[in-house]
Protein backbone atom coordinates (compact mmCIF):
# COMPACT_ATOMS: atom_id res chain seq x y z
CA UNK A 1 0.00 0.00 0.00
CA UNK A 2 1.15 3.50 -0.75
CA UNK A 3 2.72 5.59 1.97
CA UNK A 4 0.08 7.45 3.98
CA UNK A 5 -0.26 11.20 3.39
CA UNK A 6 -0.62 11.76 7.10
CA UNK A 7 0.78 9.45 9.73
CA UNK A 8 0.43 10.12 13.44
CA UNK A 9 2.12 7.75 15.83
CA UNK A 10 2.31 7.57 19.59
CA UNK A 11 1.13 11.15 20.03
CA UNK A 12 0.76 12.35 23.61
CA UNK A 13 -0.17 15.67 25.12
CA UNK A 14 -1.12 16.44 28.71
CA UNK A 15 -2.48 19.60 30.27
CA UNK A 16 -1.40 19.12 33.85
CA UNK A 17 -3.03 15.88 35.01
CA UNK A 18 -5.35 15.74 31.99
CA UNK A 19 -4.15 13.51 29.16
CA UNK A 20 -5.81 15.29 26.23
CA UNK A 21 -3.99 13.12 23.69
CA UNK A 22 -3.13 9.73 25.11
CA UNK A 23 -1.13 7.69 22.61
CA UNK A 24 -2.88 8.40 19.31
CA UNK A 25 -2.02 6.58 16.06
CA UNK A 26 -3.65 7.57 12.79
CA UNK A 27 -2.99 7.15 9.08
CA UNK A 28 -4.71 8.88 6.22
CA UNK A 29 -4.27 7.96 2.53
CA UNK A 30 -4.95 9.70 -0.73
CA UNK A 31 -8.56 9.69 -1.88
CA UNK A 32 -9.78 9.17 1.64
CA UNK A 33 -11.95 11.04 4.12
CA UNK A 34 -11.21 9.96 7.67
CA UNK A 35 -13.77 11.20 10.16
CA UNK A 36 -12.62 11.75 13.72
CA UNK A 37 -15.55 11.70 16.10
CA UNK A 38 -15.85 11.75 19.87
CA UNK A 39 -17.69 13.48 22.70
CA UNK A 40 -17.00 17.07 23.71
CA UNK A 41 -13.62 17.41 25.32
CA UNK A 42 -12.37 14.13 23.86
CA UNK A 43 -9.29 15.90 22.48
CA UNK A 44 -10.17 16.24 18.80
CA UNK A 45 -9.20 19.89 18.44
CA UNK A 46 -6.10 19.30 20.54
CA UNK A 47 -5.07 16.56 18.12
CA UNK A 48 -5.63 18.82 15.10
CA UNK A 49 -3.61 21.55 16.80
CA UNK A 50 -0.65 19.19 17.24
CA UNK A 51 -0.78 18.11 13.61
CA UNK A 52 -1.00 21.71 12.45
CA UNK A 53 1.83 22.82 14.73
CA UNK A 54 -0.08 25.21 17.00
CA UNK A 55 0.55 22.93 19.94
CA UNK A 56 3.73 20.93 20.58
CA UNK A 57 3.12 17.29 21.56
CA UNK A 58 4.83 15.83 24.62
CA UNK A 59 5.72 12.73 22.64
CA UNK A 60 5.08 11.07 19.31
CA UNK A 61 5.53 11.76 15.66
CA UNK A 62 3.58 13.40 12.85
CA UNK A 63 4.63 12.90 9.23
CA UNK A 64 3.21 14.44 6.09
CA UNK A 65 3.91 12.36 2.97
CA UNK A 66 6.80 10.75 4.81
CA UNK A 67 8.28 14.00 6.06
CA UNK A 68 8.65 14.39 9.80
CA UNK A 69 7.02 17.66 10.88
CA UNK A 70 8.78 17.87 14.24
CA UNK A 71 10.09 21.33 14.98
CA UNK A 72 8.31 22.92 12.03
CA UNK A 73 6.28 26.07 12.65
CA UNK A 74 2.61 26.44 11.75
CA UNK A 75 3.59 28.46 8.68
CA UNK A 76 6.19 25.93 7.54
CA UNK A 77 3.68 23.10 7.90
CA UNK A 78 1.14 25.06 5.91
CA UNK A 79 3.70 25.52 3.16
CA UNK A 80 4.52 21.82 3.36
CA UNK A 81 0.90 21.16 2.41
CA UNK A 82 -1.30 21.28 5.51
CA UNK A 83 -4.59 23.10 4.95
CA UNK A 84 -6.68 23.80 8.01
CA UNK A 85 -10.00 25.24 9.09
CA UNK A 86 -10.82 26.06 12.69
CA UNK A 87 -13.66 25.02 14.95
CA UNK A 88 -14.28 28.75 15.46
CA UNK A 89 -13.46 30.62 12.23
CA UNK A 90 -10.23 32.53 12.39
CA UNK A 91 -10.23 35.21 9.71
CA UNK A 92 -9.14 38.84 9.50
CA UNK A 93 -12.58 40.34 10.02
CA UNK A 94 -12.05 43.86 8.57
CA UNK A 95 -10.52 42.43 5.39
CA UNK A 96 -12.46 41.23 2.39
CA UNK A 97 -13.13 37.59 1.67
CA UNK A 98 -10.79 37.91 -1.28
CA UNK A 99 -7.95 39.33 0.84
CA UNK A 100 -8.34 36.54 3.38
CA UNK A 101 -7.94 33.93 0.66
CA UNK A 102 -5.35 35.85 -1.36
CA UNK A 103 -2.83 35.67 1.47
CA UNK A 104 -2.82 31.89 1.17
CA UNK A 105 -2.00 32.17 -2.54
CA UNK A 106 0.68 34.74 -1.73
CA UNK A 107 2.30 32.39 0.79
CA UNK A 108 2.95 29.92 -2.05
CA UNK A 109 3.94 32.50 -4.65
CA UNK A 110 7.56 32.79 -5.80
CA UNK A 111 7.83 36.36 -4.48
CA UNK A 112 6.03 36.36 -1.17
CA UNK A 113 7.11 39.80 0.01
CA UNK A 114 7.07 42.04 -3.02
CA UNK A 115 7.04 45.73 -2.18
CA UNK A 116 6.02 47.33 -5.46
CA UNK A 117 3.08 45.78 -7.22
CA UNK A 118 -0.28 46.35 -5.48
CA UNK A 119 -1.99 43.08 -4.54
CA UNK A 120 -5.37 44.52 -5.49
CA UNK A 121 -4.32 44.43 -9.14
CA UNK A 122 -2.14 41.32 -9.00
CA UNK A 123 -3.86 38.73 -11.19
CA UNK A 124 -1.39 36.03 -10.15
CA UNK A 125 -2.87 36.30 -6.64
CA UNK A 126 -6.44 37.28 -7.32
CA UNK A 127 -7.32 34.72 -9.97
CA UNK A 128 -6.54 31.65 -7.82
CA UNK A 129 -8.16 33.31 -4.79
CA UNK A 130 -11.35 34.02 -6.73
CA UNK A 131 -11.36 30.53 -8.21
CA UNK A 132 -11.19 29.08 -4.70
CA UNK A 133 -14.01 31.32 -3.51
CA UNK A 134 -16.15 30.31 -6.48
CA UNK A 135 -15.31 26.68 -5.78
CA UNK A 136 -16.77 26.87 -2.28
CA UNK A 137 -19.87 28.55 -3.64
CA UNK A 138 -19.24 32.17 -2.74
CA UNK A 139 -20.35 34.43 -5.59
CA UNK A 140 -18.42 37.43 -6.95
CA UNK A 141 -20.81 39.84 -5.25
CA UNK A 142 -19.43 38.71 -1.88
CA UNK A 143 -15.70 38.76 -2.68
CA UNK A 144 -15.02 42.39 -1.84
CA UNK A 145 -17.10 42.49 1.34
CA UNK A 146 -15.38 42.56 4.71
CA UNK A 147 -15.58 39.13 6.27
CA UNK A 148 -17.20 40.77 9.30
CA UNK A 149 -20.29 41.46 7.21
CA UNK A 150 -20.60 37.89 5.91
CA UNK A 151 -22.83 35.26 7.51
CA UNK A 152 -21.44 32.54 9.72
CA UNK A 153 -21.87 29.99 6.94
CA UNK A 154 -20.10 32.20 4.43
CA UNK A 155 -17.17 32.64 6.78
CA UNK A 156 -16.80 28.87 7.02
CA UNK A 157 -16.66 28.79 3.25
CA UNK A 158 -14.06 31.56 3.12
CA UNK A 159 -11.88 29.57 5.54
CA UNK A 160 -12.21 26.50 3.41
CA UNK A 161 -11.42 28.55 0.29
CA UNK A 162 -8.27 29.86 1.99
CA UNK A 163 -7.21 26.30 2.76
CA UNK A 164 -7.93 25.16 -0.79
CA UNK A 165 -6.24 28.13 -2.44
CA UNK A 166 -2.92 26.97 -1.00
CA UNK A 167 -3.29 23.66 -2.96
CA UNK A 168 -2.88 21.51 0.16
CA UNK A 169 -1.72 17.88 0.35
CA UNK A 170 -4.07 17.35 3.26
CA UNK A 171 -7.06 19.11 4.78
CA UNK A 172 -7.69 19.26 8.53
CA UNK A 173 -11.27 20.38 9.03
CA UNK A 174 -12.45 21.01 12.59
CA UNK A 175 -16.26 20.86 12.63
CA UNK A 176 -16.88 22.53 9.27
CA UNK A 177 -20.64 21.95 9.58
CA UNK A 178 -21.01 23.50 13.04
CA UNK A 179 -23.77 26.08 13.10
CA UNK A 180 -24.57 25.79 9.40
CA UNK A 181 -28.17 24.57 9.66
CA UNK A 182 -29.60 21.72 7.61
CA UNK A 183 -29.23 23.31 4.17
CA UNK A 184 -25.77 24.62 4.88
CA UNK A 185 -24.65 21.25 6.20
CA UNK A 186 -25.90 19.47 3.09
CA UNK A 187 -24.17 21.99 0.82
CA UNK A 188 -20.92 21.68 2.76
CA UNK A 189 -21.16 17.89 2.57
CA UNK A 190 -21.61 18.10 -1.22
CA UNK A 191 -18.55 20.28 -1.38
CA UNK A 192 -16.41 17.90 0.69
CA UNK A 193 -17.68 14.95 -1.32
CA UNK A 194 -16.41 16.68 -4.46
CA UNK A 195 -13.05 17.32 -2.82
CA UNK A 196 -12.44 13.72 -1.84
CA UNK A 197 -10.65 12.77 -5.05
CA UNK A 198 -8.54 15.90 -4.92
CA UNK A 199 -7.22 16.03 -1.40
CA UNK A 200 -7.49 13.66 1.57
CA UNK A 201 -9.44 15.05 4.51
CA UNK A 202 -9.25 14.55 8.25
CA UNK A 203 -12.76 15.56 9.24
CA UNK A 204 -13.69 16.33 12.83
CA UNK A 205 -17.47 16.54 12.96
CA UNK A 206 -20.37 16.12 15.36
CA UNK A 207 -23.04 15.90 12.66
CA UNK A 208 -23.46 12.13 12.36
CA UNK A 209 -25.47 12.11 9.16
CA UNK A 210 -22.69 14.05 7.45
CA UNK A 211 -20.05 11.79 8.97
CA UNK A 212 -21.73 8.59 7.84
CA UNK A 213 -22.36 10.05 4.41
CA UNK A 214 -18.80 11.22 3.82
CA UNK A 215 -16.39 9.07 5.79
CA UNK A 216 -14.49 6.19 4.23
CA UNK A 217 -13.29 5.35 7.70
CA UNK A 218 -14.18 6.64 11.13
CA UNK A 219 -11.91 6.95 14.15
CA UNK A 220 -13.54 7.35 17.54
CA UNK A 221 -11.66 9.39 20.11
CA UNK A 222 -12.67 9.22 23.76
CA UNK A 223 -10.67 10.86 26.53
CA UNK A 224 -7.61 11.21 24.34
CA UNK A 225 -7.58 7.61 23.09
CA UNK A 226 -8.78 6.14 19.86
CA UNK A 227 -11.13 3.38 20.98
CA UNK A 228 -12.14 2.19 17.51
CA UNK A 229 -11.26 2.73 13.88
CA UNK A 230 -13.02 1.24 10.91
CA UNK A 231 -15.57 1.45 8.14
CA UNK A 232 -18.77 3.39 9.01
CA UNK A 233 -20.86 0.24 9.27
CA UNK A 234 -18.42 -1.43 11.62
CA UNK A 235 -18.30 1.69 13.81
CA UNK A 236 -22.09 1.91 13.88
CA UNK A 237 -22.21 -1.65 15.12
CA UNK A 238 -19.37 -1.37 17.65
CA UNK A 239 -20.71 -1.81 21.16
CA UNK A 240 -17.99 0.22 22.86
CA UNK A 241 -18.58 3.11 20.51
CA UNK A 242 -22.31 3.01 21.05
CA UNK A 243 -21.81 3.15 24.75
CA UNK A 244 -19.16 5.82 24.74
CA UNK A 245 -20.56 8.07 22.13
CA UNK A 246 -23.29 7.25 19.66
CA UNK A 247 -25.72 6.07 22.30
CA UNK A 248 -25.34 9.35 24.13
CA UNK A 249 -25.78 11.39 21.00
CA UNK A 250 -28.61 9.50 19.31
Amino acid at each position, binding site marked *: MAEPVLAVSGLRKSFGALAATDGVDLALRDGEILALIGPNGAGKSTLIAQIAGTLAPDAGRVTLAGRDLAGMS*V*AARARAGLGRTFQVSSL*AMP*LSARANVRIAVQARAPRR*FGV*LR*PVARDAALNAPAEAALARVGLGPARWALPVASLSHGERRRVELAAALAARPRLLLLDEPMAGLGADGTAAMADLLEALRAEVPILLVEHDMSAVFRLADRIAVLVAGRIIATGAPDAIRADAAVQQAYLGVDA
Partner: protein
Amino acid sequence: MREGVVSAALLGALLAFGLGAWALGEVFFVNLAARVACVALAGAGLNLALGFGGMVSFGHAAFFGLGGYAAGIAATHAFDGGAFAGVLPGTTSMPVVWLAAMLAAGLAALPIGLISLRTQGVYFIMITLAFAQMIFYFAISFPAYGGEDGLPIYLRSELPLVDASDPLDFFLVSFALLVAVLLGCRTVLAARFGAALALARLNPVRLATAGIAPLPVLLAAFVASAMIAGLAGALFAELNGFVSPAMLSWHRSGEIMVIVILGGVGRLAGPVAGAMLFVALETVIGGWTQYWQGWLGLILLGVVLFARGGLIGALAGPVRHG
Protein backbone atom coordinates in the same frame (compact mmCIF):
# COMPACT_ATOMS: atom_id res chain seq x y z
CA MET B 1 -10.08 57.73 -2.49
CA ARG B 2 -11.28 60.43 -0.12
CA GLU B 3 -8.40 59.74 2.24
CA GLY B 4 -6.00 60.38 -0.64
CA VAL B 5 -7.58 63.80 -1.19
CA VAL B 6 -7.36 64.66 2.49
CA SER B 7 -3.72 63.54 2.63
CA ALA B 8 -2.81 65.60 -0.44
CA ALA B 9 -4.63 68.63 0.98
CA LEU B 10 -2.76 68.35 4.29
CA LEU B 11 0.61 68.12 2.58
CA GLY B 12 -0.39 70.99 0.27
CA ALA B 13 -1.32 73.10 3.29
CA LEU B 14 2.05 72.43 4.93
CA LEU B 15 3.90 73.32 1.74
CA ALA B 16 1.81 76.47 1.28
CA PHE B 17 2.45 77.48 4.89
CA GLY B 18 6.22 77.14 4.50
CA LEU B 19 6.32 78.95 1.17
CA GLY B 20 3.93 81.65 2.40
CA ALA B 21 6.04 82.27 5.49
CA TRP B 22 9.12 82.56 3.31
CA ALA B 23 7.38 85.00 0.93
CA LEU B 24 6.48 87.15 3.94
CA GLY B 25 10.04 86.94 5.22
CA GLU B 26 8.96 85.11 8.39
CA VAL B 27 11.95 82.85 9.00
CA PHE B 28 10.54 81.70 12.34
CA PHE B 29 7.52 80.25 10.58
CA VAL B 30 9.58 78.68 7.80
CA ASN B 31 11.53 76.86 10.51
CA LEU B 32 8.26 75.95 12.17
CA ALA B 33 7.08 74.33 8.96
CA ALA B 34 10.35 72.38 8.78
CA ARG B 35 9.78 71.31 12.38
CA VAL B 36 6.32 70.01 11.44
CA ALA B 37 7.84 68.07 8.53
CA CYS B 38 10.51 66.46 10.75
CA VAL B 39 8.08 65.58 13.50
CA ALA B 40 5.57 64.24 10.96
CA LEU B 41 8.33 62.08 9.49
CA ALA B 42 9.07 60.63 12.92
CA GLY B 43 5.36 59.99 13.32
CA ALA B 44 5.21 58.33 9.90
CA GLY B 45 7.95 56.00 11.11
CA LEU B 46 6.12 55.09 14.29
CA ASN B 47 2.84 54.75 12.37
CA LEU B 48 4.36 51.98 10.28
CA ALA B 49 4.95 49.94 13.45
CA LEU B 50 2.01 51.13 15.54
CA GLY B 51 -0.68 51.77 12.98
CA PHE B 52 0.06 49.25 10.27
CA GLY B 53 1.85 46.58 12.29
CA GLY B 54 -0.08 46.92 15.55
CA MET B 55 3.20 47.17 17.49
CA VAL B 56 2.70 49.77 20.23
CA SER B 57 6.28 50.93 20.62
CA PHE B 58 6.90 53.35 23.47
CA GLY B 59 10.57 53.55 22.58
CA HIS B 60 10.74 55.26 19.23
CA ALA B 61 12.61 58.22 20.72
CA ALA B 62 15.57 55.82 20.84
CA PHE B 63 15.58 55.61 17.06
CA PHE B 64 14.78 59.29 16.62
CA GLY B 65 17.60 60.19 18.98
CA LEU B 66 20.08 57.76 17.44
CA GLY B 67 19.41 59.42 14.10
CA GLY B 68 20.03 62.77 15.75
CA TYR B 69 23.28 61.57 17.28
CA ALA B 70 24.38 60.14 13.94
CA ALA B 71 24.00 63.64 12.48
CA GLY B 72 25.68 65.24 15.47
CA ILE B 73 28.61 62.86 15.51
CA ALA B 74 29.10 63.12 11.73
CA ALA B 75 29.20 66.92 12.03
CA THR B 76 31.53 66.83 15.04
CA HIS B 77 34.08 64.62 13.34
CA ALA B 78 33.81 66.51 10.07
CA PHE B 79 34.81 69.51 12.20
CA ASP B 80 37.54 67.98 14.38
CA GLY B 81 38.88 65.38 11.93
CA GLY B 82 38.29 62.55 14.40
CA ALA B 83 36.55 59.26 13.75
CA PHE B 84 33.62 57.50 15.39
CA ALA B 85 34.78 54.34 17.19
CA GLY B 86 38.17 55.08 15.69
CA VAL B 87 37.12 54.06 12.19
CA LEU B 88 34.20 56.10 10.85
CA PRO B 89 35.24 59.61 9.84
CA GLY B 90 32.86 62.56 9.94
CA THR B 91 31.07 63.81 6.87
CA THR B 92 29.41 66.91 5.55
CA SER B 93 27.41 65.05 2.93
CA MET B 94 23.73 65.09 3.83
CA PRO B 95 22.81 61.83 2.05
CA VAL B 96 25.62 60.08 3.90
CA VAL B 97 24.32 61.51 7.17
CA TRP B 98 20.83 60.24 6.32
CA LEU B 99 22.18 56.81 5.52
CA ALA B 100 24.20 56.71 8.74
CA ALA B 101 21.16 57.79 10.75
CA MET B 102 18.95 55.12 9.20
CA LEU B 103 21.61 52.45 9.66
CA ALA B 104 22.17 53.38 13.29
CA ALA B 105 18.45 53.27 14.02
CA GLY B 106 17.92 50.10 12.02
CA LEU B 107 20.82 48.27 13.66
CA ALA B 108 19.47 49.16 17.09
CA ALA B 109 15.94 48.18 16.10
CA LEU B 110 16.92 44.73 14.96
CA PRO B 111 17.81 43.24 18.37
CA ILE B 112 15.27 45.44 20.18
CA GLY B 113 12.51 44.24 17.86
CA LEU B 114 13.63 40.64 17.99
CA ILE B 115 13.47 40.61 21.78
CA SER B 116 10.41 42.84 22.19
CA LEU B 117 8.34 40.91 19.66
CA ARG B 118 8.50 37.87 21.90
CA THR B 119 6.04 39.76 24.09
CA GLN B 120 2.67 41.32 23.43
CA GLY B 121 0.36 44.05 24.63
CA VAL B 122 1.46 46.03 27.65
CA TYR B 123 4.69 44.01 27.93
CA PHE B 124 5.69 45.09 24.45
CA ILE B 125 5.07 48.72 25.42
CA MET B 126 7.18 48.34 28.56
CA ILE B 127 10.07 46.48 26.98
CA THR B 128 10.43 49.00 24.14
CA LEU B 129 10.36 51.75 26.76
CA ALA B 130 13.03 49.94 28.77
CA PHE B 131 15.34 49.64 25.77
CA ALA B 132 14.91 53.32 24.96
CA GLN B 133 15.70 54.25 28.57
CA MET B 134 18.89 52.18 28.41
CA ILE B 135 20.03 54.12 25.37
CA PHE B 136 19.00 57.39 27.01
CA TYR B 137 21.08 56.72 30.12
CA PHE B 138 23.98 55.55 28.02
CA ALA B 139 23.94 58.86 26.12
CA ILE B 140 23.80 60.82 29.38
CA SER B 141 26.70 58.99 30.97
CA PHE B 142 28.94 58.59 27.93
CA PRO B 143 31.14 61.69 27.93
CA ALA B 144 32.72 61.48 24.46
CA TYR B 145 29.73 63.05 22.72
CA GLY B 146 28.67 65.71 25.16
CA GLY B 147 27.01 63.48 27.75
CA GLU B 148 24.18 65.31 29.43
CA ASP B 149 24.97 68.57 27.61
CA GLY B 150 24.49 67.17 24.14
CA LEU B 151 26.31 67.98 20.97
CA PRO B 152 26.14 71.16 18.90
CA ILE B 153 25.98 71.00 15.10
CA TYR B 154 27.73 74.17 13.96
CA LEU B 155 27.26 73.61 10.26
CA ARG B 156 24.47 71.73 8.54
CA SER B 157 25.61 69.02 6.18
CA GLU B 158 25.43 69.67 2.48
CA LEU B 159 23.33 68.49 -0.38
CA PRO B 160 24.16 69.12 -4.05
CA LEU B 161 22.10 71.90 -5.66
CA VAL B 162 20.57 73.17 -2.44
CA ASP B 163 21.71 75.48 0.32
CA ALA B 164 20.79 73.48 3.40
CA SER B 165 21.70 76.38 5.66
CA ASP B 166 18.89 78.37 4.08
CA PRO B 167 15.64 77.86 6.06
CA LEU B 168 13.49 77.55 2.95
CA ASP B 169 15.79 75.02 1.30
CA PHE B 170 15.97 73.01 4.49
CA PHE B 171 12.19 73.03 4.80
CA LEU B 172 11.80 71.92 1.19
CA VAL B 173 14.28 69.09 1.64
CA SER B 174 12.50 67.90 4.81
CA PHE B 175 9.16 68.21 3.10
CA ALA B 176 10.36 66.27 0.05
CA LEU B 177 11.66 63.47 2.29
CA LEU B 178 8.36 63.36 4.13
CA VAL B 179 6.42 63.05 0.87
CA ALA B 180 8.84 60.44 -0.46
CA VAL B 181 8.55 58.34 2.70
CA LEU B 182 4.75 58.57 2.70
CA LEU B 183 4.56 57.55 -0.95
CA GLY B 184 7.02 54.73 -0.31
CA CYS B 185 4.95 53.51 2.63
CA ARG B 186 1.79 53.68 0.54
CA THR B 187 3.35 51.55 -2.17
CA VAL B 188 4.81 48.95 0.16
CA LEU B 189 1.62 48.71 2.21
CA ALA B 190 -0.48 48.10 -0.89
CA ALA B 191 1.92 45.42 -2.10
CA ARG B 192 2.47 41.85 -0.88
CA PHE B 193 4.55 42.88 2.09
CA GLY B 194 1.78 45.22 3.23
CA ALA B 195 -0.83 42.50 2.81
CA ALA B 196 1.21 40.21 5.05
CA LEU B 197 1.71 43.01 7.58
CA ALA B 198 -2.04 43.73 7.69
CA LEU B 199 -2.72 40.06 8.41
CA ALA B 200 0.04 39.98 11.04
CA ARG B 201 -1.73 42.85 12.81
CA LEU B 202 -5.33 41.72 12.35
CA ASN B 203 -4.97 37.97 12.83
CA PRO B 204 -1.52 36.39 13.07
CA VAL B 205 -3.10 32.94 13.35
CA ARG B 206 -4.67 33.39 9.91
CA LEU B 207 -1.34 34.53 8.48
CA ALA B 208 0.55 31.55 9.89
CA THR B 209 -2.20 29.17 8.76
CA ALA B 210 -1.85 30.62 5.28
CA GLY B 211 1.85 29.76 5.37
CA ILE B 212 3.60 32.98 6.35
CA ALA B 213 5.29 33.27 9.74
CA PRO B 214 4.20 36.58 11.31
CA LEU B 215 7.39 37.36 13.26
CA PRO B 216 9.78 38.16 10.38
CA VAL B 217 7.11 40.35 8.77
CA LEU B 218 6.59 42.30 11.98
CA LEU B 219 10.33 42.57 12.58
CA ALA B 220 10.95 43.96 9.09
CA ALA B 221 8.23 46.56 9.61
CA PHE B 222 9.64 47.45 13.03
CA VAL B 223 13.13 47.97 11.62
CA ALA B 224 11.85 50.03 8.68
CA SER B 225 9.79 52.06 11.12
CA ALA B 226 12.88 52.74 13.23
CA MET B 227 14.91 53.72 10.17
CA ILE B 228 12.33 56.33 9.21
CA ALA B 229 12.34 57.66 12.77
CA GLY B 230 16.14 57.78 12.60
CA LEU B 231 16.04 59.78 9.40
CA ALA B 232 13.59 62.17 11.03
CA GLY B 233 15.94 62.50 13.99
CA ALA B 234 18.88 63.42 11.76
CA LEU B 235 16.83 66.17 10.10
CA PHE B 236 15.51 67.37 13.43
CA ALA B 237 19.01 67.64 14.90
CA GLU B 238 20.25 69.55 11.87
CA LEU B 239 17.24 71.83 12.02
CA ASN B 240 17.94 72.70 15.64
CA GLY B 241 21.71 72.68 15.23
CA PHE B 242 21.83 70.56 18.33
CA VAL B 243 21.35 67.03 19.62
CA SER B 244 21.02 66.06 23.26
CA PRO B 245 19.77 63.13 25.34
CA ALA B 246 16.38 64.89 25.42
CA MET B 247 15.85 63.57 21.92
CA LEU B 248 16.12 60.06 23.37
CA SER B 249 13.87 60.60 26.37
CA TRP B 250 10.58 58.84 26.99
CA HIS B 251 8.80 62.21 26.76
CA ARG B 252 9.83 62.29 23.15
CA SER B 253 8.54 58.74 22.60
CA GLY B 254 5.26 59.88 24.09
CA GLU B 255 5.13 62.94 21.85
CA ILE B 256 5.66 60.87 18.72
CA MET B 257 2.93 58.51 19.84
CA VAL B 258 0.59 61.42 20.62
CA ILE B 259 1.17 62.77 17.12
CA VAL B 260 0.22 59.44 15.58
CA ILE B 261 -2.88 59.08 17.75
CA LEU B 262 -4.01 62.69 17.17
CA GLY B 263 -3.68 62.28 13.44
CA GLY B 264 -5.18 58.82 13.22
CA VAL B 265 -3.54 55.47 13.91
CA GLY B 266 -2.90 53.50 10.73
CA ARG B 267 -3.79 56.39 8.45
CA LEU B 268 -1.06 57.26 5.99
CA ALA B 269 -1.18 61.05 6.46
CA GLY B 270 -2.23 60.78 10.10
CA PRO B 271 1.19 61.87 11.38
CA VAL B 272 1.08 64.94 9.12
CA ALA B 273 -2.22 66.04 10.61
CA GLY B 274 -1.01 65.12 14.09
CA ALA B 275 2.28 66.99 13.72
CA MET B 276 0.51 70.11 12.45
CA LEU B 277 -1.86 70.11 15.39
CA PHE B 278 0.91 69.27 17.86
CA VAL B 279 3.30 71.97 16.71
CA ALA B 280 0.45 74.50 16.48
CA LEU B 281 -0.60 73.79 20.06
CA GLU B 282 2.99 73.81 21.25
CA THR B 283 3.52 77.20 19.61
CA VAL B 284 0.20 78.91 20.29
CA ILE B 285 -0.83 77.62 23.72
CA GLY B 286 2.82 77.20 24.65
CA GLY B 287 3.15 80.93 24.03
CA TRP B 288 0.51 81.72 26.66
CA THR B 289 1.29 79.16 29.31
CA GLN B 290 4.04 76.72 30.03
CA TYR B 291 1.34 74.24 31.00
CA TRP B 292 0.29 73.75 27.38
CA GLN B 293 0.76 70.02 27.63
CA GLY B 294 -2.24 69.93 29.98
CA TRP B 295 -4.36 71.25 27.13
CA LEU B 296 -2.73 68.75 24.81
CA GLY B 297 -3.72 66.02 27.24
CA LEU B 298 -7.34 67.17 27.16
CA ILE B 299 -7.39 67.18 23.38
CA LEU B 300 -5.81 63.75 23.27
CA LEU B 301 -8.42 62.49 25.70
CA GLY B 302 -11.13 63.88 23.44
CA VAL B 303 -9.64 62.21 20.36
CA VAL B 304 -9.26 58.84 22.08
CA LEU B 305 -12.79 58.96 23.52
CA PHE B 306 -14.76 60.53 20.69
CA ALA B 307 -12.77 60.37 17.46
CA ARG B 308 -10.93 57.09 17.41
CA GLY B 309 -9.81 57.57 13.84
CA GLY B 310 -8.07 60.80 14.86
CA LEU B 311 -8.11 63.86 12.61
CA ILE B 312 -7.92 61.80 9.42
CA GLY B 313 -10.77 59.63 10.63
CA ALA B 314 -12.86 62.77 11.23
CA LEU B 315 -11.98 64.19 7.80
CA ALA B 316 -11.96 61.06 5.62
CA GLY B 317 -14.16 58.56 7.44
CA PRO B 318 -13.19 55.04 8.51
CA VAL B 319 -10.43 52.96 6.94
CA ARG B 320 -11.38 51.13 3.80
CA HIS B 321 -9.74 47.77 3.27
CA GLY B 322 -9.13 46.03 -0.06
